[in-house]
């Protein structure tokens, strides 16, 4: 029996209904609904709402700061997980304190921290700035959005604990964490919907990407339950990838396309490609992620089932995953061309996030194609490539999702706080450490995975020493992400207090940059730039006469 098409049909229907309701409103119930939602977001919370400040931008700032801290914790957990994959007893001394994690538990905890803690919080935080800006209004409730950042962080903390021990005192910890996260997510969705209902202008498509990313998450879960596919392996695999394609892909695409345009100062290259990104992301199945949907299974409290797809499911699933290449390529190319604009260069020293976004967009296409092969293989039941699935999932997380969300957060954070990061050079060093550590470290680990797969295929009895050496090299190199995330955190925190003010920067840049440069004789570009000219300075040739001069008449 087919599971994929009926579930997606329900999902598409729910999305269309949601869009119509957002555009047309609730008719006569509009004002009542708005008033009730506003009451639920603020007054209904009682004295709790008074604990947080409601200044414009405070919610976005809090979410991004939490996301940065989670990025650091996620990198430490993932590093430790990679290390324990070649040295399982490395942390045995912690057993004296009752903590004896294995590699799988640490990696699982690292995935929760990275996906929902770091990426999720930075995307939601950036969205809290982007959607009101694109709507030409203020966020409906800054106080509520600030407050629920604490609830979300608590839910991620519970999920990280649950990754180590799923059940504590008879309570399913992961389901408890998910329940808290749903509560926080509903508050953010209602807040954003209320914000766009007060829009003073039509919202650009990146804004819709963020909105659909937010509502796509619960609607994907509802679709799977309505279709009854939640009990099957294919249905569980599908809901995992639907959440990846909506909340993570659409959310990141929306905020990063906005940040790429604003950060580089170039207009968004193509509106059509953004439309393709939105439409394509909703109708296709995003192949990025693990072949094992246990994360979604644990979060929804389901019984895990083996993926045994019917021929129809295999064909439709493979086709829809191949179709996902359209939004992936459209988004990546749009972002890369927007960053460059009319110039040949990307470097913009004033925007620390640009390099991260550039890297994430470059890595997206090859990793998405790799994931497509691995997922198609897994859905067909062959499982020949399952050996590299986990590391490919980590690569998509640390080389695509993390740089894109981090780059966006690094652009948005100064906009909402009013101050830039403390040091651009430290930010650049952190970028090289994080990107180099993630790409090189996980590439070495994939090489070790491939080596293991080859040994299993050849029925070799003794493990190869080169596999262990590659795993050691991979885990040590991945440590760069730990250092990079620490640098980013300290840079951002110090920038809050001592960073250059954005308003000061505008004044100084206009006084230092001449609008015109008079060229009297041949000179080098270096000299022109050294005189304070920028790329926008107009070079005006001034004609000279070779005739002998005479005394100036007074």
């Amino acid at each position, binding site marked *: 029996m087919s599971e994929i098409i009926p579930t997606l049909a329900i999902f598409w229907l729910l999305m269309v209904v949601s869009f119509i309701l957002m555009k047309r409103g609730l008719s006569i119930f509009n004002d009542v609904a708005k008033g009730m939602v506003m009451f639920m977001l603020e007054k209904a919370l009682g004295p709790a709402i008074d604990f947080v400040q409601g200044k414009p931008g405070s919610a976005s700032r809090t979410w991004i700061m939490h996301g940065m801290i989670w990025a650091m914790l996620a990198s430490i957990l993932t590093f430790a997980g990679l290390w324990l994959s070649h040295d399982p007893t*490395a942390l045995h001394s912690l057993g004296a304190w009752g903590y004896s994690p294995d590699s799988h538990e640490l990696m699982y905890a690292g995935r929760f921290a990275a996906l929902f803690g770091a990426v999720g919080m930075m995307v939601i935080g950036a969205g809290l700035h982007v959607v009101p800006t694109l709507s030409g209004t203020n966020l409906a409730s800054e106080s509520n959005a600030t407050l629920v950042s604490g609830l979300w962080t608590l839910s991620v903390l519970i999920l990280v604990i649950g990754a180590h021990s799923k059940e504590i005192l008879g309570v399913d910890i992961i389901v408890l964490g998910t329940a808290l996260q749903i509560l926080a997510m509903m508050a953010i969705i209602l807040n954003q919907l209320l914000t766009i209902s007060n829009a003073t202008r039509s919202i650009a498509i990146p804004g819709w990407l963020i909105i659909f990313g937010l509502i796509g998450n619960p609607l994907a879960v509802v679709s799977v339950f309505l279709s009854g596919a939640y009990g099957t392996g294919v249905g569980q695999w599908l809901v995992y990838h639907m959440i990846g394609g909506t909340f993570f892909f659409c959310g990141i695409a929306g905020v990063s396309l906005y940040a790429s345009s604003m950060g580089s100062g170039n207009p968004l290259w193509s509106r059509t490609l953004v439309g393709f990104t939105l439409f394509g992301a909703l109708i296709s199945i995003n192949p990025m992620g693990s072949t094992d949907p246990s994360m979604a299974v644990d979060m929804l409290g389901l019984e895990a089932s083996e993926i045994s797809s019917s021929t129809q499911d295999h064909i439709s699933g493979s086709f829809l995953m191949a179709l996902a290449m359209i939004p992936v390529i459209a988004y990546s190319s749009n972002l890369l061309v927007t960053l460059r604009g009319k110039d040949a260069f990307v470097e913009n020293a004033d925007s620390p996030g640009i390099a991260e976004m550039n890297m994430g967009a470059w890595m997206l296409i090859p990793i998405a194609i790799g994931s497509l092969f691995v997922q198609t293989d897994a859905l067909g039941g062959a499982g020949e490539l399952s050996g590299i699935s986990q590391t490919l999932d980590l690569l998509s997380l640390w080389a695509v999702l993390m740089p894109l969300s981090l780059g966006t957060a690094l652009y948005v954070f100064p906009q909402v706080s009013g101050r830039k990061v403390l040091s651009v050079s430290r930010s650049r060093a952190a970028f090289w450490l994080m990107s180099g550590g993630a790409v090189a470290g996980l590439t070495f680990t994939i090489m070790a995975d491939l080596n293991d797969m080859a040994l299993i295929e050849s029925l070799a009895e003794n493990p190869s020493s080169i596999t262990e050496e590659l795993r050691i090299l991979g885990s040590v190199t991945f440590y760069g992400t730990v250092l990079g995330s*620490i640098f980013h955190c300290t840079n951002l925190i*110090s920038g*809050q207090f001592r960073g250059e003010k954005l308003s000061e920067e505008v004044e100084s840049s206009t006084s230092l940059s001449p609008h015109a440069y008079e060229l009297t004789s041949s000179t080098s570009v270096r000299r022109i730039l050294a005189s304070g000219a920028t790329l926008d300075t107009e070079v005006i040739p001034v004609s000279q006469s070779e005739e002998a001069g005479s005394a100036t008449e007074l």
Partner: protein
Amino acid sequence: MSDQGSSQITEFIQGEKEPQSSSVVIALGVVASLSFLLLYGILYPGREMPVVSELLPMFEGVFDSGIWFFLLGAMLGIFAIIGTMLTEATSE
């Protein structure tokens, strides 16, 4: 006698920027302490280091994997973040 013209200042002031030579002084101190530790080994061969030799056995079987070298770095980083938060919030 009059106090006028005196070079004394009535308020405590400190420079906002760190002089480059201060890091040289710190490096010199670290090098000197390491040199004296080496010198101890040369002057008293075979004798255990005071205090340090009593502390190290406490960590036997605890930090017996290379991962602890990296985790200590990560812990330093976490403390650096907490320290940055505290010092930035309380300065001036």
